[in-house]
């Protein structure tokens, strides 16, 4: 029997793309759908998805949970669990359009929630940690339920199929966001489980990733020491947890995260100025188990910003471009040209060199330290 994500590691090739408008101008979801569709051959119809940021302005202070249910029981049990820990401000099915190529759809629901304040206080956890724990709990303990999006004012839309069909299925043209990312997947084997599609999200972190990291189990076994449970055995999942751990728990900047997961080589560090050298040495030593090796190109979406990063040898393709206030990143140039033919600047970022773009209003905030 073919095993699904979580039962076995499934290598895959992929297409990724994304863009952010730094002045916060919102763009309709069909633009990102168009972009990813140009890389059709980089997916094989076994998974794809999107993340949009700034799409729920009316509920921007609430956690938006997108949940797959395999059956009604799972939904009932999950809702019972949610009610126990959260105030559910709004709940609904996520509107979809029937698309011929997309089948076996689970129940897809959306909940806008906030933690019950007394429960949160009793837990002695900060709010985000509280939310994370509950999400992980649902995913690991409630059979047939899977929270695939849990941030504020953002949402993930993913399914088994080609990305352009998935965009159509989720009616993305009806959403508007200042930032979008997309993923088309080429797994080598999978029964096609919706939860296994990408982006992978935790709170407002979403990750689309192209690659197959060789450090997977070293990374996994390390982050699992801190309460994360890697249920899917995918790179994207563990990378998301690494970002969560380093930015939220260790309060590191995205630049620092890049310098840890795609750390400079020792020979490079040895040539740095003494202060820099000490810092990089300290990071590499302290977070040695979070170094990610093997090929990857990732787009990390977070509240108010986007980071693109290649592995330090640049073993996977990635192109970036700028036009006015918008930064574009994609596996292939065509995906950018498709939606922005006359870019101001286009380049291929170096391995290990992060590109970080944030909303102007967010500049100077702690996340970009």
């Amino acid at each position: 029997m073919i095993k699904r994500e979580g039962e076995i590691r499934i290598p895959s090739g992929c297409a990724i793309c994304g863009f952010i408008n730094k002045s916060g101008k919102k763009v309709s979801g069909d633009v990102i759908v168009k972009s990813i569709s140009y890389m059709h051959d980089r997916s094989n119809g076994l998974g794809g998805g999107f993340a949009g940021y700034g799409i729920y302005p009316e509920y921007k202070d609430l956690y938006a949970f997108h949940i797959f249910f395999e059956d009604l029981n799972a939904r009932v049990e999950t809702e019972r669990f949610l009610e126990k820990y959260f105030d559910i401000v709004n709940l609904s099915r996520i509107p979809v359009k029937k698309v011929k190529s997309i089948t076996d759809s689970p129940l897809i629901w959306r909940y806008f929630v906030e933690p019950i304040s007394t429960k949160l206080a009793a837990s002695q956890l900060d709010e985000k940690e509280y939310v994370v724990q509950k999400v992980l709990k649902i995913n690991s303990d409630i059979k047939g339920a899977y929270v695939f999006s849990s941030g504020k004012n953002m949402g993930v839309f993913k399914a088994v199929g080609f990305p352009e069909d998935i965009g159509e299925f989720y009616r993305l043209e009806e959403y508007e966001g200042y930032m979008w990312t997309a993923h088309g997947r080429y797994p080598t084997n999978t029964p096609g489980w919706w939860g296994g599609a990408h982006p992978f999200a935790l709170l407002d972190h979403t990750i689309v990733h192209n690659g197959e990291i060789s450090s997977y189990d070293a990374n996994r076994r390390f982050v699992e020491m801190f309460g994360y449970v890697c249920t899917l055995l995918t790179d994207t999942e563990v990378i998301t947890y690494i970002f969560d751990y380093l930015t939220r728990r260790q309060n590191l900047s995205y630049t620092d995260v890049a310098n840890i997961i795609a750390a400079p080589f020792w020979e490079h560090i040895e040539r740095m100025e003494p202060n820099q050298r000490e810092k990089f040495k300290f990071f590499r030593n302290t977070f040695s188990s979070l170094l990610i090796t093997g090929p990857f190109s990732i787009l990390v979406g977070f509240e108010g910003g986007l980071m693109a990063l290649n592995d330090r040898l640049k073993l996977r393709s990635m192109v970036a471009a700028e036009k006015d206030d918008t930064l574009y990143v994609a596996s292939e140039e065509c995906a950018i040209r498709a939606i922005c033919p006359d870019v101001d600047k286009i380049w291929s970022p170096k391995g290990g060199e992060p590109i970080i773009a944030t909303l102007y209003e967010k500049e100077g905030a702690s996340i970009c330290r």
Partner: protein
Amino acid sequence: MPINYIYPEYEIIRDKNKCIKCKVCVRQCSNEAHTYDEELDCLYEHNERCVNCHRCVALCPTRALKIVKTDHTFRENYNFTGELINEIYRQAESGGVLLSSMGNPKPFPVYWDKLLINASQVTNPSIDPLREPMETKVFLGKKVSKVEFDENGEVITKGYPNLELSMPILFSAMSYGSISKNAHEALARAAQELGIYYNTGEGGLHKDFYKYGKNTIVQVASGRFGVHKGYLEAGAAIEIKMGQGAKPGIGGHLPGEKIGEDISATRMIPQGTDAISPAPHHDIYSIEDLRQLVYSLKEATNYEKPVIVKIAAVHNVAAIASGIARSGADIIAIDGFRGGTGAAPTRIRDNVGIPIELALAAVDQRLREEGIRNEVSIVIAGSIRNSADIVKAVALGADAVYIGTAALLAIGCHLCRDCQSGKCNWGIATQREDLVKRLNPDIAYKRLVNLLTAWNHEIMEMMGGMGINSIEALRGNRLMLRGVGLNEKELEIFGIKHAGE
């Protein structure tokens, strides 16, 4: 003379056609297994004295010698083997404990050989270490768990003292006394050149070797030989030896005849007296006592040096390691039951303790489950034989490995396992001046450097094959391992899948 029941184990075979009677065998055999008769111009072999150390074989210029196992046998008996019978004869004669040396030679499973390493194929690329950087630098010691920043975003957290190694290999503790000064010099110089560490063992630090302090781990063991402030300060790290894989639960014994002037001064004991390391530390009767010793040593060295606690791999090693990780130790060294020794009771060497592979897997997993893997580094020991063993050890979760036997082999040891006699023909496990000089450190240190350089290349090759270009991404990366011929329980302990899965 009473009847001697014991027939020689080996026979020296001399090809008379090739022998040129240069007598190098006569001169070089400290056991006097070769003699020359002037009158008859004839060389004689004394098989009963031969320990099969190959010194004569190696030096014979015409390759006229070989040593073979005798085909003289007892009546076949699967239960009472010839070896057992002979051991009974020996004990019946001597009334003493059987002694032997080096590691456990018995046919217990060697799990390294049942673990297989992964490699990249289509879905991700392998990396060519000749063309791309390939990193094997390792830090040993406690890691910072929470990084703090000042208002400018600069890191203000100070890291803990760590050892920096150019590759995940250290030389095991071997005391000056159990091995010769020249052997120590070779280890020290090799460690210095390679950017790694050697370990004094419980023999103190010879005055000539203080200059290698930056690459020295000084050991504090139950006999406390050679321990003083200067000694503690001389090394880069301090190791508290609680146990040894070859002889868990018992102490050590260096006979008085080996305590010459130099060793006496280094160990700080009178010449000619036996150096007896007790089985326990008499100030450690429980884990909280260990914590006190760890902190005493840290206090004595201004919290500037990591402290290693070395234990033998025994049945509940994971729980013990957890306790040590919480004792303030920075590094745990675990020595498996195939670890070497200069002398141990045979029965203990061959029957006590557990394989290091299982111990390592259990300890690493337990420390992760308890969330304290970052509190300590894990160094394992006990018959690491080649670079593949190291790759497997790191993938199972070790930060680095100690090598002892392999290092001695590199400098000439032929594993005859007769260290306890003190007549090592290769100048390693001996204090006899004429034998010690057979080990020229200039040659020996270079051989160690060569060996480890080669191993490091091989480690890089294997890492490259896995698409990993830094050793830290291999550490604990058990997905890179598969088992062959292991049962469910073994796979479970290793935390790996069976090959083919």
